[in-house]
């Protein structure tokens, strides 16, 4: 944080400095597990960043759902991604440019996401999957917007999730 650092050095008392923001790109790999079930549907997936215990509103980066349905009908089940739904999904209009995406078949799904400007701080990158006729799972990766790599893995509805953050 070069800005606050220089302020500290000069020793000038500053009243409530403006929030310092930063933006990062995230190269994300989400592994959709191959499941042997009678009726398989590709999962809906929501990806968002949130500040654990912080004041920054969660920010949706991607929502993968059935885009092919007529009359935007695929959005009917996005609330099955309950965590994302509560954290901001229900106030969003879908489809949303740069956010809406198609569902992915089993295997590693690679996407590049841009966080846009966010106040500097610690964040969780949250990946939530929900499958029709199946379950739901949330995987959290603590990330640093300044850069770095984070890995986590789900157990049922999600496999390995890897995020490479670049400022």
């Amino acid at each position, binding site marked *: 944080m070069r800005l606050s650092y220089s302020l500290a050095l000069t020793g000038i008392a500053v009243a409530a400095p403006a929030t310092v923001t930063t933006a990062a790109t995230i190269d994300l790999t989400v592994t959709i597990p191959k499941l042997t079930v009678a009726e398989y549907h590709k999962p809906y997936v929501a990806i968002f960043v949130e500040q654990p215990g912080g004041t920054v509103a969660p920010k949706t980066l991607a929502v993968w759902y059935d885009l092919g349905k007529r009359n935007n009908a695929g959005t*009917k089940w996005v*609330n099955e991604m*309950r*965590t994302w*739904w*509560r954290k901001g999904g*229900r*106030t969003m209009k879908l489809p949303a440019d740069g956010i809406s995406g198609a569902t992915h078949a089993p295997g590693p799904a690679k996407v590049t996401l841009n966080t846009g400007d966010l106040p500097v701080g610690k964040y969780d990158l949250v990946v939530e999957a929900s499958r029709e006729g199946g379950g739901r799972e949330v995987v959290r990766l603590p990330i640093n917007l300044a850069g770095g790599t984070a890995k986590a893995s789900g157990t049922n509805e999600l496999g390995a999730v890897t995020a490479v953050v670049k400022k």
Partner: protein
Amino acid sequence: MIKTRILAALGAVSMLAMSGAAQAHHPWILPSSTMADGQDAWVTIDVGVSEALFAPERPAPLTNVKVWAPDGSEVAVEGGVTSKQRSSFDLHLTQQGTYKITNTGGGVMGGYKQNGEMKRLPRDITPDKIASSIPADATDVRINEMSSRVESFVTLGAPSEGAAFKPTGKGLELEPVGHMSDFVTDEPAKFRFLADGKPAANIAVTLIPGGTRYRDARGEISLTTDANGVVEIKWPEAGMYWLGASAKGAPTVQGATERRMSYAATIEVLTP
């Protein structure tokens, strides 16, 4: 499991409330879902009284059931049915925000001693008839003024705390501290109880998780409101909960010797 005589649901609730013992039968309003989304949605609302939560046992009449939309307007309850074990109606949610469903009741009941014999006042007595119903030689007169409020909450889209939640200032009520739906296990919830519009301090609040039929223990959680009438609840698990409380107060009806107010709500808690 003592089978009580079948009484009119409200009467039964009041009788039990009067006994002062823990309510064996719980009045409830049970929505099929408390969270919905889209431009509009339907939920089914069941209304009943039962010992096992939330298993239909006895219906509560829909006569006094009211629905309040997020903007505070009243929504007519249409096409309701009262069947053997529960009452039920479909609710069409058309406004974004939180709806409140209420069932309120009240009245007076009591009795006196005459020539050493306990006599009971007629069950449906109105307050204006109390004085004339008590003989001059009656002793041990006990007239209990009662009010009950049963509620539940259903949200379309994001929760709201608008006009629907303006307290009436009568009886025991719940005032949202934050919101009245959208509860999850990892976030403690706070509720404020009001007695006649003022914080109900130090009253006992009971929380019972649904599904009592499937476990040996009742699993009751007993809480007490603080000086501001507030309780904080840490949800042990996801599910449908019954929240109940009662309070005593100064009678407002001429001739009443005591007053009891009760409140119950059904609250759904989801996994985060």
